[in-house]
């Protein structure tokens, strides 16, 4: 961290402990370095302070006024006290006020046991309802089927607004009314499903309480598993393997692929598949598309990835002038679903009508994707029946009586279970690009790639650009993650279009969530950049651990095309594995 050391610093004391931090560090962050924890309900490491909760108040030099530690930078010579009698009293009263405006339905809440408000109330040893409860009754918004807004539980911290507006540039959520009637709601007080919401679920991942939660569909999965007339199969998304452990106390990034296979089999799934397999299929289709456009000039450039449903939704709502640039390849989730109900059903001799495909995804938008367009029913049935987020899976495992961490390793089922290193890195920002480049290089040059790792598209910078040599041709690529970073990239392309110039990029990867799927809206709580890095490291390690690291070399993929699909981008592949997009301008009601 030599870069940090060269920044000018300030020296001050916190509870008598001398701290030296870079100029501009908030008192809250500075206190962490002195091992002092200042409580807060609104400040999130990903976000700027909203200064809404009022719990982080501290005192400087015994002065009468209290400062908010979240948004006050530490200044040289400050003498900060964080826990004197009055501060603690003020915090306690403020917390009691917040609790008086909260329904306290902890036992039946989606965040029970994982709620920041609950845990702060426990820390403060709140034992009585000191202030008369006042909660305005308001029905929950379940309109999207992906995300549920339980308005009554909202503490108006403002995190979701900042996430939705600034971080994701979606502008679905806003504050309405004022004073005690202030409420978080879709802007214009409409149903969330009618709003610009793209179901990315980042709001739910950042909400401190149970006010924004994923639509829990575990009951439907239990019902399917217990239904004798159904045959349940399951697929696990790339990123889930390195995050699910967090729900069981393991460090972020711990790779539990094989334990997951065992656990899912124990839950009663007839077959356990891996979405990494279909990620490889996606790459074969998408890389073929790219080579078609880039080498043979069939179709417009840049080609833009489409495997993130929140991103496709966002594009259809706000950037529909890029429809022709979108890869028509379906996302891995949908490809696996359709292949399970056609290819697998055929090969295994199972009636696809009896087959129930469950997916374990990092994402709330994946729930929406299941019935996004009629192409999601390409098998003649709903290709994927139920989608669970990582959080829901963790809950199922806890209910099931399976001692998850003590399980032996298992294996995925053929013929949709083998994966390459390229498939597994789909779960991180830059991963789809990297995987596609590995295969595109082969398709364009016919040669085997020596160095398969493309460091330029890795990392947590919001927009990463690189020029990649593909058999002598220079491919200009851009990788954006976090929808807030997308507009700038697209604007560059538009600018070139207006001026009738070469597009600035040939290939663009977008993932809606910061960090990609490992930072998805359905992942275990408590995400920040540190965790994102650890989760990403877990995926890159999984990639390195694979003998096969390019999608087109995955033997089961090769077999799939040989036995069933024919050519990539061929007629059958198109019928089953590709989709279409429609412009859906906002606020047309």
């Amino acid at each position, binding site marked *: 961290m030599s870069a940090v050391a060269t920044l000018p610093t300030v020296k001050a004391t916190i509870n008598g402990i001398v701290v030296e931090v870079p100029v501009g560090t908030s008192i809250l962050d500075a206190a962490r370095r002195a091992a002092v924890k200042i409580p807060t309900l609104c400040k999130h490491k990903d976000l700027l302070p909203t200064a809404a909760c009022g719990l982080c108040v501290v005192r400087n030099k015994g002065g009468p006024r209290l400062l908010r530690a979240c948004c006050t930078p530490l200044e040289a010579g400050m003498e900060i006290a964080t826990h004197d009698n009055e501060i603690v*009293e*003020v915090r306690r009263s403020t917390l009691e006020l917040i609790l008086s*405006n909260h329904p306290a339905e902890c036992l039946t809440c989606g965040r029970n046991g994982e709620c920041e408000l609950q845990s702060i109330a426990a820390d403060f040893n709140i034992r009585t309802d000191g*202030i008369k409860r006042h909660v305005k009754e308001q029905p929950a918004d379940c309109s999207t089927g992906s995300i549920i807004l339980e308005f009554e539980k909202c503490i108006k911290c403002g995190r979701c607004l900042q996430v939705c507006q600034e971080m994701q540039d979606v502008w679905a959520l806003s504050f309405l009314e004022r*004073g*005690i009637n*202030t409420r978080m709601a879709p802007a214009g007080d409409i149903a969330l499903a009618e709003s610009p919401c793209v179901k990315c679920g980042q709001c739910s991942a950042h909400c401190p309480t149970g006010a924004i939660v994923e639509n829990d569909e575990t009951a439907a999965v239990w019902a399917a598993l217990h239904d004798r007339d159904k045959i349940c199969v399951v697929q696990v998304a790339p990123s889930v393997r390195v995050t699910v452990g967090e729900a069981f106390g393991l460090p972020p990034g711990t790779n539990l692929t094989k334990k997951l296979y065992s656990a899912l089999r124990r839950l009663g799934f007839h077959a356990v598949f891996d979405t990494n397999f279909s990620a490889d299929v996606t790459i074969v289709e998408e890389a073929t598309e790219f080579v078609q456009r880039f080498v043979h000039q069939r179709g417009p450039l840049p080609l833009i990835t489409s495997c993130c449903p929140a991103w496709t939704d966002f594009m259809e709502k706000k950037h529909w002038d890029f429809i022709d640039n979108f890869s028509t390849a379906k996302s891995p989730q949908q490809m696996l679903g359709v292949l399970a109900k056609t290819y697998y059903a055929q090969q295994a001799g199972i009636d696809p009508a009896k087959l129930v495909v469950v997916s374990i995804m990092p994402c709330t938008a994946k729930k929406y994707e299941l019935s996004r367009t009629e192409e999601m029913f390409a098998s003649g049935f709903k290709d994927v029946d139920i989608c669970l987020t990582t959080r829901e899976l963790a809950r199922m495992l806890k209910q099931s009586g399976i001692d998850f961490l003590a399980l032996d390793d298992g294996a995925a089922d053929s013929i949709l279970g083998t994966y390459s290193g390229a498939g597994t890195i789909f779960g991180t920002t830059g991963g789809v690009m990297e995987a596609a480049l590995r295969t595109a290089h082969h398709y364009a040059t016919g040669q085997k790639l020596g160095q398969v790792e493309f460091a330029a598209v890795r990392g947590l910078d919001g927009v990463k650009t690189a020029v990649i040599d593909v058999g002598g041709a220079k491919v200009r690529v851009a990788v954006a993650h976090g929808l807030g970073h997308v507009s700038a990239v697209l604007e560059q392309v538009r600018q070139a279009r207006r001026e009738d110039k070469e597009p600035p990029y040939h290939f663009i990867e977008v993932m809606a969530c910061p960090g990609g799927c490992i930072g998805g809206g359905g992942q275990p709580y408590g995400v920040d950049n540190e965790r994102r890095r650890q989760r990403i490291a877990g995926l890159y390690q999984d990639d390195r651990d694979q003998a096969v690291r390019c999608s087109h070399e995955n033997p089961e993929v090769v077999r799939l095309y040989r036995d069933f699909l024919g050519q990539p981008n061929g007629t059958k592949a198109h019928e089953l594995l590709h989709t279409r997009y429609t412009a859906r301008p906002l606020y047309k009601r």
Partner: protein
Amino acid sequence: MKPLTLDDLAALAARPNPVTTDFVRVQLDTGGIAAGAEETFAAFRAAVAAAALSTPVLRVGSHGRSWADPVVEVSAAGLPPVLYGGVKADVAPQIVAAHLQSGRLIDDHVIAPASGAAELAASVTHLLVLDTGVGEAKTKFFQFSFVEELKRRGLADQVQVARALDLGVYDEGVVVTLLPAGVTYTNVLAPDVARIVEQSIQGRQVLDDLLWKRTDPQVRIVLRNCGSIDPESLPDYLERAHGYQGLRAALARTPEQVIEELKVSGLRGRGGAGFPTWLKWSNTRIQKAEPRCVICNGDEGDPGAFMDRSVLESDPHSVLEGLMIAGYAIGAAHGYFYIRAEYPKAVERVERALSQAREAGLLGRNILGTGFSFDAKIRLGAGAFVCGEETALIASIEGKRGSPSPRPPYPSVRGLWGRPTAINNVETLANVPAILLRGGAWYAGFGTETTKGTKVFAVTGKVKNAQLVEVPMGTTLRAIVFDVCGGVLEDKDIKAVQTGGPSGGVIPDKHLDTPVAYETLQQLGSIMGSGGMIVMDTTDSMVDVAKFFLKFCVDESCGKCAPCRIGGFQMLQILDRISRGRGAAEDIAALRRICQAMQKASLCGLGQTAPNPVLSTLRYFDEEYKAYIEGGPSYARKMARAASGAEPVRALATATTEGA
């Protein structure tokens, strides 16, 4: 109008102010218009035309006597200008016929504030009489007595006796003012009538035992032009009000010198917090980032406060001039007037002032050839009280939800559109041209050690003359309420004065002799605020007062931060319980606890100060709260009256009158 030059302004400054006589000035501000001043204006025009007179009927702003609206100032040869109050349209022809055509004053409308004059240089032409006592009105009796006495002495044709509306003296029995000198006698008794006529009217001797020697404590700096110039006329401002001479003085100096002049003046922000204006400017000026902005905060929202509205409506150019000087001092080329949409007249007049200034070359590029460029725009507030808070105001101008943001960064560092921004209140800016013109030292000559200059208060509530008052800092609350505004309505006993609006507190009777300054009011648990002052008598319930102001803050809370959003609401629930007699003993402790959380943990001034009305009433009237809890509202009112020393019998009588 052709663009002005510095030479034009210099020439204007060198010229003596034209003395104008023979006019009718109708005070057309929102208050006046609401009381019918536009009809009055039309009626005057019609009456003057019908009488074939050449007297101009002019529009001016308000000098602040809202209680007397519509107010008209009439000047005709031989008499100093006379103010008439309560001039509805039907009174206009009477004034034209009497005053303009025959030099006679009409009864029951004249306002002639006691001037403290002690000499009778010219012969008395008019005698004004008014009973200011508490008893039965004796005005007519004394008018009759004077007329008879004058007749007896053969003076009836030379001296007219008129009943006045207000003579600027209160609770001093029968008051008589002799015009044109303005000598005022107080506590005049029946035997004095003959003495006055004989010695003062015939002998031109001043009767020392009756003479009213006190002078009006008011000093008009902010309100200097209000009511005397046409707010819609730039020439009026230039020729009759030293218009833009402050700007000329500023442009002749460096910005640093201008800031230094402000520092010498000791001017502090009149929006409420009292932050030194020079320091705010200096903090903005030293920022490297450019461009910078200045904003005039005209989002006046305290219940009962109308100082800023009145100034914007009556003297918009002086606020604009102040804004331009601020712009020059901090190096800003852009200014904004943020005015609440509920002030359409103010918006209209500021808009007009801006276009007039633009036309005259006072706004735009290279103003007066000095190289200074500046222009200003108006932005309307949608009525949220919290938008008077500077960070919320900035958010509002930027088109965002009007919620405060954490400071630092202060607007002087990162303000509007991220630029260094100085935000000054209307009244602060109205002071600035006068300071530049007459010097910081002159300004610092008014006021107290820590609080210089004057302050405009809007005195309302249970007061006889609800009006704007401008007094030097350090004037006592009692002087403001009793000497300037005539005391409590219906001559009831005063219980408290509420200052500082919803962020302020009540100051009980026993502390009314405190000189008004930022620090003294704070020590008493209130604040200066923007200048609202509400007078309460012994029948006012302090729990209801606290509830009223708290309700205001609860309604106006932006809802952003928890202590204010929930704390205010919960306190209101408790106060409501108490006021209905359903309170419990532990409610007081709960109130105090929530007050503490709100004061200490709220993000902005609204939340931090919203508990003040509750805390200050608890501080001075905790017995009343206890009485409410123990015995309910009726019992509490009875106890409160007894505690304030009002006789029970009289209190009962008052209650009966009220009921009737």
